[in-house]
């Protein structure tokens, strides 16, 4: 009988490792390729500091909602109501802050709580009442779109107090005076972020090596971390050359880190994937599947509310059109990012990359002057193509 311990410790060759992890890196490579393509096609406009800041601001709420959507999709469900919920919450915020003159902090907390409540109601029907999520959230989509128009009276409410606008259009306070057009504090923040990422990677690698279970080749590890440093550093540099780091980028970064951790490292995260992979088997392994599904919908409600607030702050008004069609962008981001419609598969980083992939395409095509009509056609084809490539890779 062969000893079972042998195979695992052998470090793989760089090519072999890349092949095994193609799915993860493929996404990133596609994003970089699309960025390069539009950078050339737009004659360098895409990566101008102003435009990079714009891409971040334009996509922040999609990314925030995609974090929640990814978990919903991983459990094998879907939430079609997020656009309507985001719009409804924006309207609610407008009503409370502008019409009733309530304090912005109170309003934010109240809005997130309402988001949680909406998620709980929908989650109750899905998890405990066993009604397909497609139907429950399709109903939610209609209900909250209607309620929003009802509370807004089909007109926009605005403007919001300046402090609330800062949620979206504010920038990190610069502690050091800017030098040569560069916002030093923002730039340093970016560098610190890159260094934290690299330190984490290093610590993880050290730990795995000490237990003899590292499979990533050293050269590959160095190259990966240099790319992280260069990539994050460059983006930080671009953003810092415009007006500094937007507040919403900080919120986004914190949320991405938190949800990455939640999905990959925690017991709850593992159980969510198990529920999506095989709900009956998970249940018979002692996992409380209904409660977890309920939880993912509550979580989605809160993030949809946060997305709604960010949009309202960015537009500086609550309009009846806000949030329309967001659900499609959010769901597309998850699927482009490698999530499986059958559940059990998908990554937070994939969803984030998927969201930016769509965002860069939107932005790049707008700069090129492609009409909204053909933009939709191209986005649809990209979604289909990305999923086809993924399915093909799976079958191989």
């Amino acid at each position, binding site marked *: *009988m062969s*000893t*079972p*311990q042998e*195979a*695992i410790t052998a470090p793989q060759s760089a090519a072999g490792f890349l092949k095994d992890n193609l799915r993860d890196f493929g996404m990133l490579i596609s994003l970089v390729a699309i960025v390069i393509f539009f950078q050339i096609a737009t004659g360098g406009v895409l990566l101008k500091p102003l435009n990079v800041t714009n891409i971040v601001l334009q996509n922040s709420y999609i990314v925030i909602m995609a974090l929640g959507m990814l978990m919903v999709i991983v459990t094998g469900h879907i939430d079609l109501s997020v656009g309507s919920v985001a719009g409804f919450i924006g309207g609610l915020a407008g009503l409370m802050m502008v019409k009733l003159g309530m304090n912005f902090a109170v309003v934010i907390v109240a809005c997130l709580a309402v988001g949680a409540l909406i998620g709980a109601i929908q989650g109750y029907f899905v998890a405990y009442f066993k009604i397909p999520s497609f139907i429950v959230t399709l109903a939610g989509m209609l209900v909250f779109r209607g309620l929003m128009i009802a509370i807004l009276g089909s007109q926009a409410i605005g403007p919001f107090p300046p402090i609330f606008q800062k949620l979206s259009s504010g920038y990190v306070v610069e502690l050091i005076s800017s030098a040569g057009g560069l916002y030093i504090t923002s730039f340093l923040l970016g560098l610190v972020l890159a260094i934290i990422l690299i330190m984490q990677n290093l610590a993880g690698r050290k*730990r*795995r090596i000490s*237990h003899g*279970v590292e499979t990533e080749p050293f050269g590959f590890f160095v190259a990966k971390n240099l790319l992280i440093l260069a990539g994050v550093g460059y983006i930080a540099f671009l953003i810092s050359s415009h007006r500094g780091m937007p507040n919403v980028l900080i919120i986004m970064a914190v949320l991405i880190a938190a949800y990455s951790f939640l999905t990959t*490292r*925690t*017991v*709850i995260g*593992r*159980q969510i*994937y*198990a529920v999506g*992979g*095989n709900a*009956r*088997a*998970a*249940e*018979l*392994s*002692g*996992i*409380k599947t209904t409660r977890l599904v309920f939880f993912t919908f509550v979580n989605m409600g809160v993030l949809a509310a946060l997305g709604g607030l960010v949009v309202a702050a960015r537009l500086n008004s609550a309009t009846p059109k806000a949030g329309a069609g967001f659900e499609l962008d959010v769901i597309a981001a998850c699927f482009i990012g490698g999530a499986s419609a059958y559940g*059990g*598969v998908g990554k937070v980083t994939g969803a984030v990359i998927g969201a930016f992939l769509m965002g860069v395409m939107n932005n790049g095509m707008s700069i090129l002057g492609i009409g909204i009509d053909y933009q939709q056609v191209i986005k649809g084809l990209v979604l289909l193509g990305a999923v086809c490539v993924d399915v093909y890779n799976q079958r191989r």
Partner: protein
Amino acid sequence: MLDPVSLPEKPPILEMRGISKSFGAVKALSDVSFTVREGEIHALVGENGAGKSTLMKVLSGVYPHGSYEGSILFDGEERHFHNINNSEALGIIIIHQELALIPLMSIAENIFLTHPPARHGIIDRGERHRRTQALLAKVGLSEQPDTLITNIGVGKQQLVEIAKALSKDVRLLILDEPTASLNETDSAALLELLKEFRSHGITSILISHKLNEISEVADRITVLRDGRTVGTLDCHAGPVDEDEIVRRMVDRDLESRYPKREPKIGDVIFEVENWSAYHPMHSDRQVVKNVSLKVRAGEIVGISGLMGAGRTEFAMSLFGRSWGRHITGTAKLHGKELDLSDVHKAIKAGLAYVTEDRKQLGLILPEDIRKNVSLAHLGGVSSRGVIDDIAEMKVAQEFRGRMRIRSHNVYQETGKLSGGNQQKVVLSKWLFTGPEVLILDEPTRGIDVGAKYEIYMIINELADAGKAVIVISSEMPELIGICDRIVVMHEGAFVGEVSGEGATQENIMRAIMRRKGREE
């Protein structure tokens, strides 16, 4: 024909010569020769992965001509099948292990799904009904043609599949593990049917792991091992020795099919009293009726019974009420009453239940070995809700070694493992929870002889470690081979008990029949 022995008898209907088939670098079949005579029942046996299914896919055209080497002769002529339609046109029909019936369509609609009797493109329902009735009579199934598939049991569904094959003028019927999910009575009926077909001149190829069935009906037996033909046994030349078949299949001597063990039985540790459960949908149907059971430390207790006797329902209702409604009764471990109100609590209380269906209920197939092993006891590899990936990996590696799970490493997807190895992963998952009471439901279903032996060894080890082990199985020889005591369940109640020493298939069946007789 080159083989002079086959000449005096009937000529071969099928001859596969020198078949080789590779998937990438893996050679699934190498130079396999396989001859089937007209009108015989020819059994094809071998361990999982020996190449039986691949050979049948080559024959039926699933792997088209050109994707393999060698030649296929049917009725003495060389044939090139490019898809299933080509082989079906000649009357070669395969019935797969996973039945290909549409649950919400009627029996008649299923039988004539691809070739309904029609006039001008409009289905002639009356004709279809008549023909279906005739076919059902042939296979001995007394159901109405418009009964939905979902409303009949697996055994009857199997018969519908056969009726479907008959509707296509079958000449060579290939059955892949037809009795794997059937109970004894249905299996016996199916085998009788094959014999009857033989008398009408229909040739059958039977793929099965159940050697007793094979020796009962087969005229000849071909053994495959590692993608090669080991040999063909003629059952009419003399009595077939089952151990001889096993030896050829695994190429090693198995002392016996069941490992020896000196039971070290202690005191009663697990007690179930007056356990009852009702059907979740039909709340007036009591499926488990006042069952009481005591299991001692180090004891292996078998639960025997026909399909539908309520064995799985008993186990699942006990295991965190994962089946049924209005569940009543008490369960005690070491004299203390247990709270088994949900699965999580049942696991905490020291119970483990290895499900009968490992793919649907046991494993998260897209996940790797490591994540499946830790799933039921994530608390054991985490602190404050955060998983320690290295501790987890070490646990998985330990079980991989102890259970002899054959895989590249612990990061291999469980969906890509063989049945026996998948079952070992499921067992690992439950052993990691550190159970006191282990309930195994059909632990060796669809697993080859070699892996079965290893599973029995694991079960023995657990018993020797002082656990209470309960084994549910439809294979009586298996229960007789490994259990210290066997209780017989019939229609939801325990109707008899035989000790391991005195257990024979006859007295188990007698216990069931006696009860049946009393009811009638």
